[in-house]
């Protein structure tokens, strides 16, 4: 790789990190720093706590269609989504050995039960189920969440991480604020000029960003942003602008994202890799940093099928995102057997229908290999949107 990055070199590097089941960059980081590395499952964990204690957070997002599942299928029935079996496969085949533990955030019963399996399968590792509140009052859910975070910090220390330090956490919040800003900026650029930021590129960059140390990730995204914006060879095509929703946990194969783009869709907002978008604005750097993390989770997190929506109307946030992104239609793209996504979908559909927004829906699995049907469906959908917009 030359010293001056190009779009191709950045995306190429991100792609190789995304494809590397053995987490080579994590192994190298550990060898270099002597720090601990903690895996985490989707959707969100407070990476700042880990970073502040010198621990590298490493996003685990299942596998692609090229991972041969040898052991994982023996752990799951056919009617359970794919991500737990590929995660088990990666674990049992030793590919995740460099991780000192894994965090399992509370998003659904599958991840929840997987945390128990992990405890038993990897007894020497740190395995924590990170419960997150569904009550958003600071004095109730906030207090509980703070306690969870304090316990997490202590658990990391017991494994050899630096003890919790408020100033270090403030510094980490600042670093993650910077990363979140870059992610938001790229999403904004893609909304404005989607031909400059193909989702297939943005996606692998985000996947690399959950594995790289925070400052590296921020730099990579920032460099890509500058280069993509400046690239005059990328010209607009007559594509439909769509929002893709439902893919917050098990991820579609990259081939599927490419298929959607090739079938005539500009994806102008999506639910992929949400960890660095979960908190939607900068977390304040004043006051008690742990408390600021808690308050951000309670008051500034994305709406998600995995969170209880207590005040607003269901789907209101989705509609707002559609409107803000200028999407002309919605692709409901959910993993097969994903309870949170699929149970949520009828409510989300009603919300978009109330606003007269066209939609279509399909399911996928992270190892889906055939995209022909989806290509035709998305192509027809994109064509119909374009026809309507002309009419």
């Amino acid at each position, binding site marked *: 790789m030359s010293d001056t990055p190009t779009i191709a070199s950045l995306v190429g590097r991100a792609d190789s990190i995304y494809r590397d089941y053995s987490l080579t960059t994590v192994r190298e980081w550990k060898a270099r720093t002597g720090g601990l590395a903690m895996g985490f499952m989707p959707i969100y964990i407070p990476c700042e706590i880990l970073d502040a204690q010198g621990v590298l957070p490493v996003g685990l997002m299942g596998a692609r269609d090229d991972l041969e599942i040898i052991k994982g299928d023996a752990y799951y029935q056919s*009617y359970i989504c794919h991500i737990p079996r590929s995660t088990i496969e990666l674990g049992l085949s030793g590919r995740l050995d460099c991780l000192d533990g894994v965090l399992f955030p509370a998003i659904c*019963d599958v991840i929840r039960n997987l945390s128990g399996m992990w*405890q*038993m399968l990897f007894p020497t590792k740190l395995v924590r189920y990170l419960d997150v509140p569904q*009550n958003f009052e600071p004095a109730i859910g906030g207090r509980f969440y703070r306690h969870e975070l304090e316990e997490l910090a202590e658990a990391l220390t017991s494994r050899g991480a630096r003890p919790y330090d408020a100033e270090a956490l403030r510094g980490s919040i600042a670093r993650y604020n910077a990363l979140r800003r870059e992610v938001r900026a790229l999403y904004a650029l893609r909304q404005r000029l989607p031909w400059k930021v193909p989702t297939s590129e943005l996606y692998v960059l985000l996947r690399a960003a959950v594995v790289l140390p925070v400052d590296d990730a921020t730099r990579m995204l920032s460099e890509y942003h500058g280069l993509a914006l400046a690239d005059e060879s990328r010209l607009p095509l007559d594509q439909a602008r769509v929002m893709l929703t439902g893919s917050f946990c098990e991820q579609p194969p990259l081939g599927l994202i490419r298929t959607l783009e090739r079938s005539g869709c500009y994806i102008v907002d999506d639910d992929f890799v949400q960890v660095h978008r979960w908190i939607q604005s900068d977390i304040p750097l004043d006051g008690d940093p742990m408390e600021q993390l808690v308050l951000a989770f309670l008051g500034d997190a994305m709406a998600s099928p995995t969170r209880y929506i*207590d005040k607003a109307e269901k789907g209101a946030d989705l509609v707002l995102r559609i409107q803000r992104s200028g999407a002309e239609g919605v692709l409901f793209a959910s993993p097969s057997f994903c309870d949170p996504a699929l149970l949520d979908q009828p409510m989300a559909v009603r919300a978009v229908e109330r606003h007269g927004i066209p939609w279509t829906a399909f399911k996928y699995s992270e190892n889906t290999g055939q995209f022909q049907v989806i290509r035709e469906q998305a192509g027809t959908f994109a064509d119909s949107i374009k026809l309507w917009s002309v009419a």
Partner: protein
Amino acid sequence: MTPTTQTAKKDDSQVRQKEMIARHYDKLAAAPQTGDKNVYTFVPGNLTELLLSFDLLPVLPEINSLQSAMRGKTAEYISLAEKAGHSEDVCTYVKSDIGMMRSGNIGPTGQKLPNPDLLLLSYTGCFTFLKWFELLREEYHAPVAMLHVPYQPDGRITPAMRDYVVKQLKDDIIPALERISGRAFDEAKLSEHLRLSAQAEDDLVWVLQSAKHRPSPIDAYFGAVYYVGPIFSAFRGTEDAVAYYRALRSEIEERIREGKGPVTPDGDIEKERFRVVVEGPPNWTSFRQFWKMFADEGAVAVASTYTKVGGVYDAGFRHDPSRPLESLAEYCLGCYTNLGLPTRIEMLANYVRDYEADGFLINSVKSCNSFSAGQLHILREVEKRSGKPGGFIESDLVDPRYFSAANIKNRLESYFQMLEQKRMGGAA
């Protein structure tokens, strides 16, 4: 989560249960006229005593779904829900409930159920509950009171978990119930209901543990779903429930004296050939047929985890009138599906040992990730720890499309043959 009518000859306890249920549904049906208020809520982590202390009537949609299945209605209900856009992949309890609502909301007794005055989302042991009541909120435009119960990943209740639940009870749930009922919270009344709960719980535990006898006087899976009915639903904390469990206990005492095995759909089991522990909920669409597959082989369930979804009383928990809210919190936290997998495995292995079972069976239901995700791991681990063979069958709760009778029967027959061979091998 439990059916309400026994299938063989009626004992005193069964008659009582039937009457209790009939009275309850009569009250619900009359609610629009009487002005009685009702609260829809879930079996695991239900707050029945608290509702009763406000004179509110509980409605359990899970029970309506399983009752609909036993009445052969769920194929139609599920199809209605799927036509309305609900995925074929998700929990069929939810779809059955939504289909039932769209078909006029006729409950198990053939009477119309009132719309909910409140949806009490006690979110214990299952994420689907959250989505279920979000869906019902849209259908009924009813208010929701949310009680988030943290999970027990390490099999222990921490003070932070308990405090979180108690605080929600105080700050959110009780005020919501006060609003709906128009009454002030009466802690003494709640405590009195909890006192009654503990009495009934003592007798229920006695009944469940009677399966340690040989032969077991009860079937602790199929039969026991009737036994847990009152305590898992609208009756915990009532004099009726106390009387029901007292009557049930004396009937079981009688069976033990007479050396009888359990009642089955076709009468008393003649010879207990196999003692098994069962994990997972039953199938409700072919409940009798499923049970018969066991009974025909002389297989008796001596313990089950399904009968712990509404409370793990045999591990010692009792509602405690002296600490009403803390006790309710601990109850919610302790329900079976809220326990981490290692705890579930330990519990199953202990059952196999304590009830001297020949093996254990898992009925894995397609609907329920809360139960099913991880059951293949449970199978291997319990085999390893107990040294007894495990069997694995797959079906669903209320979707008849996923009950393949021939397939399940084959599997069960092979499993029981294997147990027999092991026994003969062991004896040789």
